[in-house]
């Protein structure tokens, strides 16, 4: 008998083990929900699957009586728009300042202490400042995502630029490259896959700030809807919304990973070889 740490499950067993916890959770939910509803048909805490699918049908596939819109899709569109703009600007800012400060000691000296301090400010604490200065519109919510994620991306990129072997940078100089050419032809392509990795890691934070901002001030959005229906204890709406947010987050993460593997195969081979 091998030691436990050396036992590798077979392919099919792996698949089974991966699905198992999900099935168990669903079963547990189903029994608990049935039990509660048998006792009190008006119980709202654990709605049955029928009630949930009714709610999904009402939110996603029926026009809202008041506004004539399909609320689920309006919410999804608004939230995706905010998070994409927010994380996109964060990535651009992170790349620019991360590279400047990783590559240029003179820039780093002035900038690095500042960004270290700024990244320690809890973004939620300055949310009121954002609402006061940028109003309750889109800008404040996008700014919250940027302020929450950009400093982390900047610091991550900065440290990765500095971790590039100095041999590579010296070699480029002996081949006649200026600072600018080293930046765009040597550092930038090598840092891009790491930027994607940094964005993937910040996605969770970005969703957190998005939902927080929507909960406080918005007219539409996934986070707004969840907090709105909370007043009526509408678990049948909240649960599918949460699942949908999870699915969106997973899809974004997955597509970023695939994009990175497609565009930078050399990086993933290198990492796998380590």
């Amino acid at each position: 008998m091998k030691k436990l740490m050396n036992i590798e499950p077979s392919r099919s067993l792996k698949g089974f083990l991966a699905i198992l916890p999900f099935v168990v959770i669903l079963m547990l939910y189903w029994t608990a929900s049935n039990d509660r509803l048998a006792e009190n048909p008006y119980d709202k805490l654990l709605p049955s699957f029928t009630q949930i699918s009714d709610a999904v049908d009402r939110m996603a596939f029926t026009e809202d009586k008041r506004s004539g819109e399909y609320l689920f899709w309006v919410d999804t569109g608004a939230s995706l728009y905010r998070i994409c703009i927010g994380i996109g600007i964060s990535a651009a800012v992170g790349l620019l300042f991360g590279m400047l400060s990783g590559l240029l000691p003179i820039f780093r000296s002035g900038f690095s202490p500042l960004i270290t301090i700024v990244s320690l400010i809890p973004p939620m604490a300055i949310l009121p400042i954002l609402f006061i200065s940028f109003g309750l519109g889109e800008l404040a919510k996008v700014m919250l995502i940027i302020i929450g994620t950009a400093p982390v991306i900047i610091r991550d990129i900065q440290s990765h630029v500095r971790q590039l072997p100095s041999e590579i940078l010296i070699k480029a100089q002996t081949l006649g490259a200026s600072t600018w050419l080293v930046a765009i032809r040597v550092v930038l392509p090598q840092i891009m896959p790491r930027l994607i990795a940094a964005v993937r890691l910040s996605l969770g934070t970005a969703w957190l700030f998005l939902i927080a901002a929507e909960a406080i001030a918005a007219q539409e959005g996934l986070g707004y809807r969840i907090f709105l229906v909370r007043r009526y204890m509408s678990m049948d709406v909240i649960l599918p919304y949460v699942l949908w947010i999870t699915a969106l987050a997973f899809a974004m993460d997955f597509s970023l990973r695939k994009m990175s593997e497609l565009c930078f195969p050399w990086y993933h081979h290198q990492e796998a070889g380590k």
Partner: protein
Amino acid sequence: MSLLKIDNVWKSYGEVQILERLNLNVEEGEFVSMVGASGCGKTTLLKMILGSEEATKGQILLNDKPIAPEPNEERGIVFQKYSVFPHLSVLQNVMIADEFSASSFLGRTFGKQKKQIKQKALEFIQAVGLGHATDKYPHQLSGGMQQRLAIAQALMKSPKILLLDEPFGALDPGIRKDMHQLIRKVWKENKLTIFMVTHDIQEGFELGSRLWVFDKVRHDPQAPTAYGAQITYDLKLNDSKKQLEGQAIAEKFSQKVVNS
């Protein structure tokens, strides 16, 4: 007039004296091998010639002018590892050398100019024996092939000086022999002046036309870092008689290293 003149160079890091009183002249076309125990400062001297380190005292002159205090096109380098760009194919790795100088804003070339650079790059790739692997990425190459690529890259700029920092240290003995042949060929054909740091005394003898042995002459038992290393032997290896003489000294030297 010598190509490179090392004029009373001293180097220390804080309290630690690494090198002292180096006075050397190197003519064009010499192949200098540098050997010595670890930490004796041979790589430090190489870095000072490269420009990534500066001398604490004294100066290094290239063609009678102080050498540039940062790496540039005059001096090519091949490190033990990390010498090639992992995100570029073999061909792109070599072409980038000329693309840097051809296009100072984009660092890329197009059309006819690109064709010319590609032609030149392919010649050097052939010369180092990588003709069959032009589209491969460095992670797909063996250690020896990566070093060949690094040499081809450096040759693109036809540098006055080629610096080799333990270039074959991580390679298998058989591949090492092939690389020795290659570097000798490259040295002769391109009329290079080469400085090579090596741990392998035998390698130093076989390859170089001149051998520098680094060692500490002065010792202070109470303060082992107070004195730096000097070049204790400066041997010309041009003819076979001198080769033999050198071998004898080398054997003595290697015994000393073993004993100490």
